[in-house]
């Protein structure tokens, strides 16, 4: 486990509840978690365990009802909408289960999209996007449209997009959920490679096979963390 001083994520007694017709529904109860720089964490749990809510909070798409969430040294609870958007742009990279590429744009344009929102010049955007596409092995497909490539390739593009603004934290929500196991393994290998380069990864999954690629497994149940273990064997592999 990383030290407190070098933590990317520090969560203290985090609560999140939703208004429902049946009253207030507590999705997360008293969650404490620290994730240090360079960690590769799998968040696991059955559906309804609160892991999706937890990911939304981690990704600054939502705000906690109570408790503290410090991301990269900044207390998220005190930030306005624009500052949250800035965090999502600069500090966090998202990878989704359904890839979520924009269908009308080429792969290169998809990858460079986050750079538009930080006001980068067109030439620099294209240069960076090309670099990232090369990193995931799809440089030759830069001008293809998303519907012309396979699911595994789409997820690689999505990863390139998540990384294009050099975030400290990569959040992946069931990134292999829509892929066959062979392709899923390739994607996980890519994540491991990225992690070795130093990027912190938090990955939500309900598959033990996938979670095994991570160095640390955090288990959720009924809105609480019920397990937190670090495995060292995968690091050596």
């Amino acid at each position: 486990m990383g030290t407190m001083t070098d933590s990317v994520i520090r969560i203290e007694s985090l609560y999140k509840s939703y208004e429902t017709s049946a009253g207030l529904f507590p999705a997360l109860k008293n969650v404490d978690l620290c994730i240090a720089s360079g960690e590769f964490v799998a968040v696991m749990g059955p559906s309804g365990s609160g892991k999706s809510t937890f990911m939304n909070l981690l990704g600054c798409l939502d705000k906690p009802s109570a408790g503290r969430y410090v991301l990269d040294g900044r207390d998220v609870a005190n930030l306005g909408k624009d500052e949250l958007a800035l965090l999502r742009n600069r500090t966090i990279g998202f990878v989704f289960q359904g890839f979520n590429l924009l269908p009308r744009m080429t792969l290169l344009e998809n990858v460079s999209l986050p750079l538009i929102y930080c006001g980068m010049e067109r030439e620099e955007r294209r240069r960076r996007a090309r670099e990232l596409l090369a990193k995931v092995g799809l440089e030759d497909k830069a001008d293809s449209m998303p519907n012309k490539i396979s699911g595994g390739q789409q997820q690689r593009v999505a990863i390139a997009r998540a990384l294009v603004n050099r975030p400290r934290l990569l959040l992946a929500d069931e990134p292999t959920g829509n892929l066959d196991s062979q392709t899923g393994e390739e994607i996980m290998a890519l994540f491991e490679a990225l992690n070795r380069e130093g990027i912190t990864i938090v990955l939500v999954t309900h598959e033990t096979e996938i979670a095994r690629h991570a160095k640390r497994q955090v288990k959720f149940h009924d809105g609480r963390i019920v397990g937190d273990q670090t495995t060292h064997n995968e690091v050596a592999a």
Partner: protein
Amino acid sequence: MIFAMLGEAWRAMGANRLRTLLTMLGMVIGVGAVVLMMSIGQGAQYAIKQTISAMGSNLFVLLSGNTSSGGVRSGSGGAHTLTVGDADAIAELPGVQTTAPIHTGNAQVVYGPSNWSTSILGTTPNYLEARSWQVVSGAAFTGSDVRSATRVALIGKTAAENLFGDEDPVGKTIRIRQSPFVVLGTLAAKGQSMDGRDQDDTIIIPLTTAQRQVFGTQFPGSVRMIMVQAATQEDMPAVEKSMTGLLRQRHRIREGMDNDFFLRNLTAAADSAEESTRVMSLLLGAIASVSLLVGGIGIMNIMLVSVTERTREIGIRMAIGARERDILLQFLLEAIIISVGGCFIGLLLGIGGALLVETLTGTMVIISANSVVAAFGVAATVGIFFGFYPARKAARLDPIEALRYQ
């Protein structure tokens, strides 16, 4: 960044070309209709203004009253109740700029082998002043011509063309009812009067000459009408009142008896004609503006559909760092491009339509820079106004909900 956004707006519109074009069509028709209506309206207004300024400003006409003998009524001007003395007396009233007694009739005019029947107008030099009628070549006759009843004439453009063709009339001698007249000058073209009469088909001679040598009079000094010009428009009601009083007194009309003359306010008639054209063109513009409004609502409608369809895209953009204002700007730009694009096409069609109307019907149309600028301004405003609500709706979406949207 704005260029990147423009590019994206363009791409989004291109992805659904037919829909974009149909949405634009609302603006095209709206702007086209407004420009066309304004051009026609302004053309009509201008035509009327010209007629008015050709007539002269702040004018009254006094006509002699009617006679009735054995149940046959003669119509106005039948009884020659007005005199040159009346005209001189009215000229002394406060607020009166000038007066011109007029004696008219039709006569056959002969020059060499050509002859032409035209209206002969006997009056004083004041008449030209009151009607602001210029002499373009030669010179006008003077007061002394009137006093000594010389046989001189000023000739209108139409009459001159018919009698002289290409020849210069100045200095030539024409015959009016056999008497020889020397043409002193030619008059500037006035065009049609409000009732469609050709005002240039006329010959103006000294009043006394007309009275004594051409038409004759019932009694010396009687005239058919007097033109009265007030100094300003504000003077007109007061002049009308004092003039009526003066004439009743001079004609010894007792309390309760009818006037033996008719008084017409020419300017009022013209003003009301101008006013009604103005109201008409405003009305046309207003009706056309409704189609602009409908076009705007069409844009809002399509943008709302577009926001709903692209909810997931909005969620993705938010997740990778788009701020509310980025999303707002993106959708607003799309709405503005549609409305301004539509406006541009509408402008071309409107101007084309106006020119076509001018060619086909001969109606004067005026395409003013003002109406073009106004149409563009309105279109941009419509785009922003009707695009804002859908854009704000997009910007306010909850990113989690938006990402979950199928």
